[in-house]
């Protein structure tokens, strides 16, 4: 798993954008958590966007890290959002229920086939 960061301004708010690449399972969950944590600490940014376009696999270990960051952001009055998830990753995000608390962009392939509404 690789992760790179940037800051982007959307409207009036500044978002910390984390672009993640590769597989997120228990082998990298600790590293994933730590890298997000370190960047969130130094950036002092209360909005986190996870760009998951290049994530090829995720299981409950990776989803647990996202839930943990959501709780942290929510406690500070911040927001977290997910963009670019591929179909398999998106289905896991739905199965975990994270879509109920985190804004997640729907994969184009799914709304094109009518599996989900745009």
């Amino acid at each position, binding site marked *: 798993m690789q992760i790179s960061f940037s800051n982007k301004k959307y409207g009036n708010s500044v978002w910390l954008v984390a672009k993640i690449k590769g597989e997120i399972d*228990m*082998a990298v969950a600790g590293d994933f958590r730590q890298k997000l944590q370190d960047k969130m600490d130094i950036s002092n940014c209360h909005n986190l966007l996870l760009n998951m376009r290049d994530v090829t*696999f995720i299981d*409950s270990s990776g989803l647990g890290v996202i839930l943990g960051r959501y709780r942290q952001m929510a406690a500070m009055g911040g927001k977290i959002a997910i963009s670019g998830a591929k179909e398999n990753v998106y*289905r896991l995000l739905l199965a*975990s229920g994270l879509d109920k608390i985190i804004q997640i962009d729907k994969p184009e392939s799914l709304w094109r086939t009518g599996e989900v509404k745009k």
Partner: protein
Amino acid sequence: MNENIYNKISMQFLSKSENVSLARIVISSLISTRDISMAELDEIKVAVSEAVTNSIIHGYRGREDCMIEMKVNVAAEQMIISIHDDGIGIDDIELAMRPGYSTLGEHMGLGFAFMTSFMDNVEVQSNVGRGTTVILSKNFNASVAQATQAI
């Protein structure tokens, strides 16, 4: 040899976290030629990932020097994956399998929930102090099989 068996493997690996992906790769390779969709293949990979992760973090409490055994039988209509550890075992299987139940912080308690929703059957055998075996079954082309049974 049972002619019904398409392929069969038995492997043992150390309870290291990097071997979770090894288990997934083996499963992908074994079943990529079978009649299943990409979505189903991804779901089976998640189920295997969860079972091996459970063996490492719960069964062996994170120790990396223990052995996990994975056996896979692939037949024409079904595959059976068994994942075994000689770890601490599960005291209350029903409680452990309840969605949202977790004994560890920042874990979602979704491992067994994913296994049961993504596979056709999940069986857990466990003896406290002696280990756990999780048996995951998946029927290939389930819709065709169900339709045939209905006739």
